[in-house]
């Protein structure tokens, strides 16, 4: 019973299904299952490290300079972006050209920036590890939403669906129905 309650709480906190954050990115990566899972995994890295960076920025930035918060978050994500590309080039050798697309797609989007702003704006989340765990949880939520999408992706693209609704329109309606179920659970 405890696990079910925790699972429902985790689903209800899902940023894609409840706040539509990162939906465009998910559609960009939805071409294949490996693309989607790869992107979701890299987004988790971005949300986790990005949340840690947000904690540092939030700790140092006075309230009067709130307008430049976005600029600082963007600079931080930019640093993580180039850092991850360097790390991939150094450690993956030939596979760099194969995997770099996941980093390019995942860097600047609503999933990452939305998570960073959500974590920063939630009063209950406090402390360095609180930020990191919230970032990790948001990334895991993105992975979960990707898995939910891949489960139905083939059927939503099947010839049985009318041509005009095949693919993205059907996926949007599908996500809407899941989002409605979560709304009811909340």
């Amino acid at each position, binding site marked *: 019973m405890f696990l079910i309650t925790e699972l429902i709480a985790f689903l209800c906190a899902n940023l894609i299904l409840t706040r539509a954050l990162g939906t465009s990115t998910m559609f960009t990566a939805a071409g294949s299952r490996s693309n989607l899972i790869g992107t979701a995994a890299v987004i988790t890295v971005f949300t986790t490290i990005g949340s840690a960076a947000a904690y540092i920025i939030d700790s140092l930035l006075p309230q009067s300079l709130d307008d430049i918060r976005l600029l600082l978050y963007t600079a931080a994500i930019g640093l993580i972006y180039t850092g991850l590309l360097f790390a991939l080039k150094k450690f993956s050798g030939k596979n760099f050209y194969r995997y770099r697309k996941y980093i390019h797609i995942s860097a600047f989007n609503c999933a990452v920036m939305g998570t960073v702003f959500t974590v920063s704006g939630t009063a209950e989340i406090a402390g360095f590890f609180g930020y990191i765990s919230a970032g990790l949880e948001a990334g895991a939520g993105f992975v979960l939403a990707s898995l939910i999408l891949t489960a139905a992706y083939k059927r939503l693209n099947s010839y049985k669906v009318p041509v005009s609704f095949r693919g993205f*329109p059907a996926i949007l309606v599908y996500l809407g129905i899941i989002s409605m179920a979560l709304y009811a659970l909340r």
Partner: protein
Amino acid sequence: MTLKIFLHLTERGLKALNKRKLSVFDGLWRDNTILSSLMVISPVIVCGNTLRNAAAIIYAFSAITLFSVMIASFVPKKLPYAVKITVNAIIASLVYIPVKRAAQEFFPDIIPRIGIYFPLLAVNSIIILHTEAKFFKMKRLNMLGSLVFYILGFDLIMAVISIIREIFGHGTLNERVVDVNMTISGLGEPFGGFVFLGLLCGLYRYLRKKLSEGT
């Protein structure tokens, strides 16, 4: 009679927009930011449920995107892709500052309601991805024209979606009660946004196919 002429002109206009050679107009119909490319859909799904929210989003999106892309077009093309993307995002974040200050004057009660979706407009897909993939491959004047139509395409669909969702979701328009027989409260919620946008996308694809068959 007037309606007939209007419908005829609209049909002719849409057919003209469907033609391949009119690429500057792509963003308005054939490659619409929301309905075709599915870009910047988070604010549409969550905040596009009232006309006043939509007005604030339209203002911020238009201003941030137009000025950011125009300024970013002067960034040297020889820079590595990742650096260019980061610079584009930083330029957008800088443009966001005066846009937000002005928005606090024009829409003081709306900005807190929109919340995190307001700053997120600065990292929208048009600025981050479409600039390098499409706009910066064009001549500057063509780029400006194309960009304006991409922005107008977003603005138009955002306004239409928010009007329909406000009328049938809340029974109001611009926060004034309107006479509708039935309201569907879920239409104002994010899940209603997902479903409604999906249906609108399907309708758009159907119309686009029919019109391209006719040309």
